[in-house]
């Protein structure tokens, strides 16, 4: 994993949510996505009590190369 960014806001249904943006190495995104994604999702749930925070967690992943192509500031 390279970095995690997040923001809190409302999702499509108006429910409060926390949106994690997780950048992975190209190798992890291409060859070990399931393993790494599971670890990241589980690890965040262990550290943060989402029900108590009143938010639903969303996790989105992209590789370094994908982010380099898109250059989205929110993922930088």
């Amino acid at each position, binding site marked *: 994993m390279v970095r995690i960014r997040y923001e809190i806001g409302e999702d499509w249904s108006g429910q409060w949510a926390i949106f994690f943006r997780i950048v992975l190495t190209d190798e992890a995104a291409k060859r070990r996505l399931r393993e790494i994604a599971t670890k990241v999702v589980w690890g965040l749930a262990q550290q943060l009590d989402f*029900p108590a925070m009143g938010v639903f967690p969303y996790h989105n992943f*992209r*590789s370094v190369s994908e982010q380099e192509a898109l250059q989205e500031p929110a993922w930088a």
Partner: protein
Amino acid sequence: MRRIATPAGGGRVSTAYYAVFHLLVEDFVSNWPFADQRARLARVFSHQRMRDASFAPRDKKNPTSVEMQVMEVVTAFGQLQGDRHRADYDMGWKLVGTDVANAISLAETTFAKWHAIRGEDVARDHLLSMFGAKR
């Protein structure tokens, strides 16, 4: 440069969500004894109500393995539903190949988890909550 997913990728994200949606709905209605009423019963399911159905383990600090798997199914369902909504309606979402791969992976994992726990009381109880039954 890696390929950025085309709109077709959004279709695959939607398909991943609907696969899980139908897995749960069909599991529920297949237990209804009147086969000719199952399609109508399935239409009672609401996407948002399914996502909003609350689940908490009996002992929050010590969830059982089945409760943990139910929580993982709940989280995956919400993630897939949110991604599906963005893929279909959010024109600003820059969908990438990793989004598509993750949605498919999440759906496959959710199928396996649900098949492992679908006969458990805790899982059946939560499916009833997804249908809309109050506690």
